[in-house]
């Protein structure tokens, strides 16, 4: 199972992001290599989620440059990021509450669907074939994440942990190049976390998907990441392999408390 970690695919240089007086990110440089599992950790309010938002265009930093696949990226809108193959999950679950699990996951494939609304209205020929072709793909994801039995349940009724899983499914359905995960394991017990890790690692292994992960469970982070970056108050205080970070005194002081 030799994963080949490739070149830098996302490169953030000297990013600063402010909201009024709040400095969410200050002069941060950070990169992600192809096929790696890259984690972001840090205390609450450190700017981790903001970082993901910068990567996929939800926030536009005031300063700094972003290179994506080597090219300088101008102001990019979220849907453009999606078109480039960046998918993500959210810290405060952002599922479409009124839809079933299946429909939610199907939305993940929207960029791959080509029929227009008139074809949809008639639901004949191409539109139907397309719908079924994508349904097959989605069913693969469903099977992979073991959520077959809740396919037709409206997501609003699901318990928190399952919602997180559905959100992952939605992101996976897009067959992304880069997967941004914002605390995918919050609110799960150990067994569920193990399942989740398994899914993440499998995706990484089988499809070579690059993963950027925010997580507060140090056990998980240290076990599955290739490299970890540590933020504190919007500043970068550590970056490197898990072991390296774990023993960085500044990181211990700001975040870990005791060394695990």
């Amino acid at each position: 199972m030799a994963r080949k970690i490739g070149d830098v695919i996302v490169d953030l240089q000297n990013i600063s992001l402010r909201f009024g007086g709040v400095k969410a990110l200050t002069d941060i440089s950070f990169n992600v290599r192809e096929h790696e599992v890259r984690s972001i950790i840090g205390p609450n309010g450190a700017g981790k989620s903001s970082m993901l938002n910068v990567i996929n265009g939800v926030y536009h930093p005031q300063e700094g440059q972003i290179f994506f696949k080597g090219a300088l990226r101008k102001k990019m809108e979220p849907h453009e990021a999606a078109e480039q193959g960046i998918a993500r999950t959210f810290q405060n679950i952002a599922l479409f509450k009124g839809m079933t699990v299946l429909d939610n996951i199907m939305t993940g494939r929207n960029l791959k669907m080509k029929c227009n609304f008139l074809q949809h209205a008639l639901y004949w020929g191409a539109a139907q074939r397309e719908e079924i072709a994508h349904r097959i793909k989605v069913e693969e994801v469903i099977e992979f994440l073991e959520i077959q039995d809740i396919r037709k349940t409206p997501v609003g009724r699901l318990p928190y942990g399952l919602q997180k899983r559905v959100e992952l499914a939605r992101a996976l359905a897009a067959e992304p190049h880069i997967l941004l995960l914002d605390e995918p394991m919050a609110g799960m017990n150990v067994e569920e976390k193990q399942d989740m890790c398994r899914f993440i690692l499998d995706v990484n292994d089988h499809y070579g998907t690059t993963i950027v992960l925010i997580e507060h469970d140090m056990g998980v982070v240290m076990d599955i990441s290739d490299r970890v970056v540590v933020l504190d108050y919007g500043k970068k205080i550590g970056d490197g392999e898990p072991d390296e970070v774990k023993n960085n005194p500044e990181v211990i002081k700001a975040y870990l408390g005791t060394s695990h």
Partner: protein
Amino acid sequence: MFYREAGQFKASYAEDARIFPIRQDRIGFWVLMLVLGVAVPLFSNEYWLKAILIPVLIFSLAALGLNILTGYAGQLSLGSAAFMAVGAFAAYNFMLRIDGMPFLLALVLAGLTSAGVGILFGLPSLRIKGFYLAVATLAAQFFIVWALVKFPWFSNNSSSGVVTAQAVTILGYTFESPEAKYVLTFLIVAFMALLAKNMVRSSTGRAWMAVRDMDVAAQVIGFRLMRTKLLAFAVSSFYCGVAGALYAYTYIGTVEPEGFNLDLSFKILFMIIIGGVGSIMGSFLGAAFIVLLPILLDNVVPALFGDALGAGFVSNFQLIIFGGLIIFFLIVEPHGLARLWQIAKEKLRLWPFPH
């Protein structure tokens, strides 16, 4: 006991994606279609056709339009009646000004005109949300009605502003009798309902719902807000426009801009709320409910009280009951009659076990 899907297996995703995955539902549906399409016009009397069934169908279509916009795409609108007006007057003018204009084409063109106007008034939705947008749609309501009254060209310089719909002729057959008009309306509405159902169960509908439920997430997944919202406005206005044209051509026969007032917009909104927001069937149930309720009250309340109380009392009492019932329904089931129906079915499926 008979309402079970036991023993029915879905062998393909195509089967699973059917509108009615349960066989009993499918049979029931076709029976209903036959009754509505054949038995009703054969056996129903003129009053029912003209005063109840045709308007129910037409309002269902308008409600469907609003439901697409509000129920599926999440953009609350208080201007649906204005789009009906656009449709009605557009159809009138197409028929009037273009010689030999086929009725069905005029209907489509009316819908398209309405869709165009809808897109125009939908543009603000890209920035404005929720009740702000709702109130802003009133601009469409008032402006459109004003413009139709103000510029006599729209009503072909009729001194009263009222226009009379031309005869409806398709392939040489003139739809005159209530039965014929009913069947025509029924076919158009059923067809458009099918189209709507198809849209909402495919990627188009999912885009609408995604934008409705959480637009930031929808964007992150790759939906384009502008395109999705404007499409919803266009399709919704198209439906309302066609409903407006049918209102003029197969129902009332003569229309004036002021008939499409705010009250009517509210009425359509009621239909989707009572029927079920985000439900195709709900649009029909809601329309039936809102059209029938006042008529029912009209017949029931005086019968209850006789002439003992003044006529004003009776009318006001009906108003109170109407308002009260709306509140009552919202409390009993905020998701509308369609949901109530669904729960009933779920219970039936489990019956005789409670859960």
